[in-house]
């Protein structure tokens, strides 16, 4: 099976909007697997009907979420619009992932063309990012690989079947977890990192 480990750096600020209340829009420090896969396929939504229920996206390859490697954030003030009391986010604070922030993720399956230096658009407002490290290898899934472990992203209903996990991010739609390397956990090794691939 072909797999890739890649690290990318943001060329512009962006967000993966997390908690948002009282005019304070926070960001999660992880980017979802949907964000990674869409970005690397150059897929984007040109319009959205916000009334429709979220449908899970499918891709020709799998991905871990992008974990923060060297991520810096900053809180900025936000003051938009011309008229008082209209629209969203009139005035408030936003936490942004700064340009230069670095992320790491692993992909496997029917991979798209990837090259070092490649630029793609990711996150809120589609910030450009560029690949700064890329390892592409044929890998064999096993139950024994050891080493630093990448996180996985699972739907909430999948998480309840796990015997052990450390939650990193929890939202209504997905959990990002660190899984302990137990003997029955399928995984593979790529670029020095263990990628858990739980059998669901």
């Amino acid at each position, binding site marked *: 099976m072909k797999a890739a480990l890649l690290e990318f*750096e943001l*060329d*512009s*600020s962006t967000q993966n909007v997390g908690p948002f209340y009282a005019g304070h829009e926070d960001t999660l420090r992880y980017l979802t697997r949907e964000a990674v896969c869409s970005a690397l*396929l*150059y*897929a*984007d*939504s*040109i*319009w*959205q*009907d*916000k*009334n429709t229920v979220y449908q899970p996206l499918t891709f020709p390859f799998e991905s871990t979420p992008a974990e923060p490697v060297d991520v*810096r954030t*900053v*809180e*900025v*003030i936000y003051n*938009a*619009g*011309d*008229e008082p009391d*209209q*629209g*969203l986010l009139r005035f408030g604070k936003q936490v942004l992932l*700064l*340009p*230069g922030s670095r992320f790491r993720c692993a992909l496997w399956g029917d991979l798209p063309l990837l*090259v070092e*230096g*490649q*630029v793609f*658009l990711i996150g809120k*407002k*589609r*910030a*450009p990012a*560029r690949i700064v490290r890329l390892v592409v290898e044929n890998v064999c899934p096993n139950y024994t690989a050891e080493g630093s472990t990448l996180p996985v992203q699972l739907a909430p209903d999948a998480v309840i079947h796990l015997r052990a996990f450390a939650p990193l991010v929890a939202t209504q739609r997905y959990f990002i977890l660190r899984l302990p390397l137990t003997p029955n956990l399928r995984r593979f090794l790529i670029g020095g990192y263990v990628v858990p691939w739980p059998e669901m």
Partner: protein
Amino acid sequence: MTTFIEQLPARWEVSQLLATPGRINMLREGVITLIGVKRLESEALFVSSEGGGTLRETAKVAFAGRERYWWLARKVAGVLRRVMLTELQVQNCTVDRPCINCPVCGLLGGLNTDINRALASRAKLQDLLSVEEYEYEEKFRIRQPDDPNVTSPTPFQEVIVPPGTRFPFIVRIVKPSRFDLGVFLYANRIADGLGYGNYSKLRGDASTRWLAIFDGFAHVSAYDLLSNGEDIDGRIKTLVGDPPGPVKKASTLSGEPLEKLVRQWTSSKEAWSGESGPA
């Protein structure tokens, strides 16, 4: 000379955009990459933090080996939208309540909360990070009171971006039309004259020198342009010869043909609006 710009569709109506499947592949639908250099012609203040007391500070970010002035993309996009709304004389659409039905929303996108429909911006701007190093220098300023009976002025401090500071300006337009490119170049020229950032009535003026338009998604990053010294023009000229990424190299527009197009399209709306003229 025929350029790839002339082969682009004349324009997209919003109804046509809404008729496309919601999710698209950018590379299949087409992308153009514009690269230029924005230069501040007067001082500017791009405030992004609350600051303390009477101090207002331009944002900064450590990037590509040095601290740089940080000009958020939305501070450019906001001025562009207002210029487009005025220049295209759009009715019933404002910054606060985008209609999702006009040519400005068609290019810059928006969310209409009455019908719960969102259009994505097809113009992808990115933050502008200065070529020159950030320099912390507090300027002491005085604000005279409006009320003539009040005699004491208010002192305050600002950390501004000095005139002459340059920023690589990378813009991608997805599913582009001649109208999209034309209105963008035209509005950008006017926006440069109006100014950006805080108190733009008196400052924040800029100029944009366009150096290349690539027919495709050029793998060009601000990091690439900024990490090899301050000769940004030289770096861009090298890229023009051999642009990385899915780009039709023979179509790249630069030099005199690009200057001519920008001159024509920024001086007359008719050149790109489809009403008359060479576009």
